[in-house]
């Protein structure tokens, strides 16, 4: 299993490279102009040495990103991007990670509760709630939150100042993900509760609570964790918007200022960071998957033989 995850972590590099290639191809084919100066580096501010082909440029960029974490320079300020990206990514990552935690802390109990009350009004209430909240873009929810808690109740500031104020953007992000998680958890739990082993555990005299929390929940979590990387992608995209709404200076604001200032290098750097974060998230998804699903663990430790058999 350890080997599997080493392989999986190493696979991040080619997958990020593929995304970089995709963006390079898009950027050069869409503009149709000479893209010899697509990326500006600190050591050649006048553009790369003449006659670098597309692939050479791509290779140079990938090499610099993966060996020296050199994303080029910010074409507006002339400062190397590395430090700026590091700080901004830290801020965005913190927001995303905490809201991902909120997402699961909110979504899983709701889903489990709905599944346990299947067919009753609590169930249909939660279903309609999740349908509604999964349709609300995070900036609209931010508006409602700010109007209610900052303008009407005056509990928080519109521009974050106290620690309490930071809850609003986190909540605005988490609600969207949580409704998706709740939906998936409910479906998974409902399926598990119909399984014969639940019936036999109940007939053995276990209380409903321990059947659900000890035995059924573990199985129901599998689908909930399988959408972890999707949730992370949504949260990351949402954070671009929520950052703007709450004036948080994270990756999103860097991206927006890069767009309005025509900073191709900066935009590319942001895109690479996003791609990197998302591939790490997909590795975490796999890890969570193995944690909640013991049968997968066994498959992985005898990986080679079983996979060969499964392939047939």
């Amino acid at each position, binding site marked *: 299993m350890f080997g599997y995850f080493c392989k999986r972590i190493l696979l991040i590099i080619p997958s990020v490279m593929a995304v970089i290639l995709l963006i390079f191809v898009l950027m050069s084919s869409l503009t149709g102009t000479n893209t010899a100066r697509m990326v500006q580096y600190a050591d050649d501010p006048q553009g790369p040495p003449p006659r670098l082909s597309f692939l050479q440029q791509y290779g140079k960029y990938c090499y610099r990103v993966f060996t020296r974490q050199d994303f080029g320079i910010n074409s507006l300020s002339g400062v190397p991007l590395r430090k700026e990206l590091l700080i901004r990514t830290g801020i965005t990552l913190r927001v995303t990670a905490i809201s991902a935690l909120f997402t699961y802390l909110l979504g899983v109990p709701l889903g489990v509760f709905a599944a346990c009350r299947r067919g009753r009004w609590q169930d249909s209430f939660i279903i309609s709630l999740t349908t509604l909240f999964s349709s609300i873009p995070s900036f609209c929810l931010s508006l409602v939150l700010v*109007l209610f808690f900052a303008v009407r109740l005056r509990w928080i500031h519109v521009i974050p100042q106290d620690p309490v104020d930071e809850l609003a953007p986190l909540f605005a992000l988490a609600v969207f993900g949580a409704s998706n998680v709740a939906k998936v958890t409910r479906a998974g739990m409902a399926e598990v509760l119909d399984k014969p082993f639940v019936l036999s555990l109940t007939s053995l005299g276990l209380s409903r609570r321990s059947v659900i929390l000890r035995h059924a929940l573990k199985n129901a979590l599998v689908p909930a964790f399988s959408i972890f990387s999707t949730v992370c992608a949504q949260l990351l995209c949402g954070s671009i918007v929520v950052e703007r709404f709450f004036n948080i200076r994270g990756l999103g604001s860097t991206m927006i200022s890069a767009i309005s200032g025509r900073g191709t290098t900066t*935009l590319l750097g942001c895109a690479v960071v996003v791609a990197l974060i998302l591939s790490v998230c997909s590795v975490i998804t796999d890890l969570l998957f193995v944690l909640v699903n013991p049968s997968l663990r066994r498959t992985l430790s005898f990986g080679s033989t079983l996979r060969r058999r499964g392939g047939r």
Partner: protein
Amino acid sequence: MKRKSRAFFRNPVAVTALAILVVIILFCILYPFFTTIDYREMNFEDRLQTPSLKHPLGTDNFGRDLMIRMAWGGRVTLSVAFFSGLIAAVIGTVIGILCGYAGGSTDSVIMRLMDVLSSVPGLLLAIVFEYMLGMGRGNFLYGIAIAGIPPFAKLVRAAVLEISGSAYVEASRALGASPLHVIREHVVRNALPLAAVQATTAVADALTTCTILGYISISIKPPMPEWGMLFDNGKNQLRILPHLSLIPAAAIILCIVCLNLMGNGIRDSLSIGGGDA
């Protein structure tokens, strides 16, 4: 097919959602013909007004009528959403059918490409397109459309694989049906309802992305409104006139909710009326 559509129309929630959507679309198309106010017309004496008879939804900080701007914004937002959803649906369905039917190396190459594409968030792709093709011309539409292709392709491919393994397709092949006939008569007909469900999701996603781009002010050129842009505009008057951004927000949410409910309705009608597609 008929039974399925009847099942759809017997679902009150789905029909209501469809009706609301139709009303919103009709409003956006027709309202500009019934008023003399122009969406660019600034009138500084009338700025920041609350709703009145002359301005049914009030005016913004330049004294522009919000009602007409909502209608024009809806034209932009909804058409971007529908067309990018449509493009994604058509291209994705074709790719899915080709992959599922061709199999082999064509299939695996295209599917790896789809994997790469789906690992990039649609918002990012839309930003790259808008940035590279020039700002303010609505080029993000292609970005949204391309980002919408992979789920269609995967869904349709899975459906095709399932269908082409079934006995009746084998039977029709044994009777000498050409591949084209099989695709047209069996594969497309079975995959289409699934694609329709996915299409409502794709349009809703496109609508979200479109309004987000408007909100971070990288969609179309400013005098032309867009719902996300109107929302952003109104945000500065949050304390005095919250309705300036609440109304665009409500319109966005309403459209997405209705699209999702419609999708649910179609999915339910598939399982009710199943079998005779």
